[in-house]
């Protein structure tokens, strides 16, 4: 009886030890993979940053070197001489800020309309809204370009700003989901107090919808800041170029192909504002990604 008991205990202990070993191996493996993947994701960006301070002859050496032999901050000032950073930065800011206001204003209005009112064909219209997400930009590209050309908007910021005042399907979707989650009681209370629709919208809904608005603001900022194709076709005058186009032109200038360190310095200058915003609003970035993954 007691013998069998100790055997079981011993067996149990062995199992326990085994499962602990396998657990440790599992953890080591887990963190090993996570570290490897982080390096895989970050290494190119880290190298961009480091090589932006390297002397030119160090950038092309093999095997790859990671730490500048001499730190050369003048790569940045040299890059600025070829590339009108100030102008492109200002242009990008103008487009980004106006687009941001357009997106927030139009998308909250429209989302509120879809979320809180009953009107004929509402659900059909909302389906159409979702369907437009499927329409490839390539299909819209040419007629829209031709139309802007006809009204003289090529080489102005209007094509990059004005459409944002008419609602973006994806942001409207995000915002509507959020509005649907706000309890009706709050609105009814405001109505009983005699507030009109516009007042309810601006004084009750908008303050409550702040989290959704921040998400839209971030997506809109990212969209304008990173946009390449739009500025590429609409802005031909170098004085109107955005950061994205300025950077592209800088790296593809004839004879500039070789100055990797300055190209990396220019890239760092373009990336920095986005990274700063990302680190300040990380939670909202993640939220934005999550909202985009919600089923409708």
């Amino acid at each position, binding site marked *: 009886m007691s013998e069998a008991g100790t055997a079981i205990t011993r067996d149990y202990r062995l199992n326990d030890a085994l499962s602990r070993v396998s657990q440790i191996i599992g953890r080591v493996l887990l963190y090993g993979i996570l570290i490897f993947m982080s390096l895989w994701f970050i290494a190119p960006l880290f190298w961009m940053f480091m090589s932006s301070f390297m002397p030119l002859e160090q950038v092309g050496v093999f095997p*790859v070197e990671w730490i500048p032999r001499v730190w050369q901050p003048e790569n940045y000032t040299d890059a600025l001489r070829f590339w009108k950073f100030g102008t492109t930065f200002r242009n990008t800011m103008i487009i980004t800020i106006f687009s941001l206001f357009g997106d927030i204003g*139009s998308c909250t209005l429209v989302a509120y309309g879809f979320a809180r009112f*009953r009107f004929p064909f509402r659900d059909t219209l909302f389906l*159409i809204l979702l369907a437009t997400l499927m329409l490839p930009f*390539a299909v819209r590209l040419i*007629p829209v370009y031709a139309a802007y050309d006809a009204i003289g908007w090529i080489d102005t910021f209007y094509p990059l700003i004005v459409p944002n005042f008419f609602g973006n399907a994806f942001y409207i979707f995000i915002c509507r989901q959020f509005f649907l989650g706000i309890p009706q009681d709050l609105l009814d209370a405001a109505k009983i107090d005699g507030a009109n629709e516009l007042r309810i919208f601006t004084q009750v809904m908008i303050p409550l919808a702040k989290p959704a608005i921040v998400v839209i603001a971030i997506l809109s900022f990212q969209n304008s800041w990173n946009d390449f194709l739009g500025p590429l076709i609409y802005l031909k005058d170098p004085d109107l170029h955005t950061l994205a186009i300025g950077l592209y032109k800088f790296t593809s200038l004839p004879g500039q192909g070789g100055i990797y360190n300055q190209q990396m310095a220019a890239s760092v200058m373009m*990336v920095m504002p986005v990274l700063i915003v990302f680190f300040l609003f990380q939670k909202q970035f993640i939220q934005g*990604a999550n909202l985009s993954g919600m089923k409708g």
Partner: protein
Amino acid sequence: MRKREAKFGLLFIAPWIVGVLLFALFPFVASFVLSFTKYNIVAPPEWVGAAHYEHIFTDDPLFLKSLKNTAVYVGGSVAIRIILGFALALLLNTKVRLLGLWRTLFYVPSVVPIVALSIVWLYVLNARAGLLNWFLGFFGISRIRWFADPDFAMLAFLIMSTTWVGVTMVIFLAGLQGIPEEYYDAAKIDGANMAQRLWRVTIPLMTPTIYLNVLINIIGAFQVFTQVFIMTGGAPRDATRTYVLHLFDHAFQYLPPQMGYSSALAWILFMIIFAFTAVIVASSQRWVFYQGGEE
């Protein structure tokens, strides 16, 4: 009261109604009409019937080539995003320490502007001194001439796309975190091992999220353009000429611009994306499981 409500509702959505007419319906119809014309922006469009479509299907070798390249990118990059994104989300869902840190590190490349990423990756993929060849050297793989060799050029873009799984991963992670612990406890009591729990509990419950990610990523991947335009412009020997690059060149690079031809290409792309979406949506009833109670 009902009438008043409808009036306000329509008033609120009015900006979008104008927008959808101007920026979706008008271009949608106009590009279809333009696809039957010869159009160079300067002169008014000139009707040519189905000539562009005929030319595309019979006499444009780059149409098939770019379609094939795009198909490779769609298949490869969507598989990478779904599989790698899901795998990373699973790893992060194991009560891992420093969850926020890992999630941030995986997400960072997704917020970096694509122009800057493209320029950096040109050097990562540099044949002589690039990071990737340096890394592969540790495994005894000799230097690959990524953008000089037609067999490797498209693969290079797929490798680059692995660093963008951040958004997909975050969506999966949120989905995984929403699965109630009781389901796993019940499966454990029934004696299910880890693989069985993954296959019988996690994946079925995640099918709505997988479905959505497949759809979003397929539609996006068919339109791959910017990094190809910046990094190779379609070289070497059109091995990386993607579909949208091909139609962009016709509209904006060639002189005189061939906007009508480009519109025909755009409409074919639309039909392809539409067909893919329709098939996926139709098939979803067979493999996507919504939990009871919700919706």
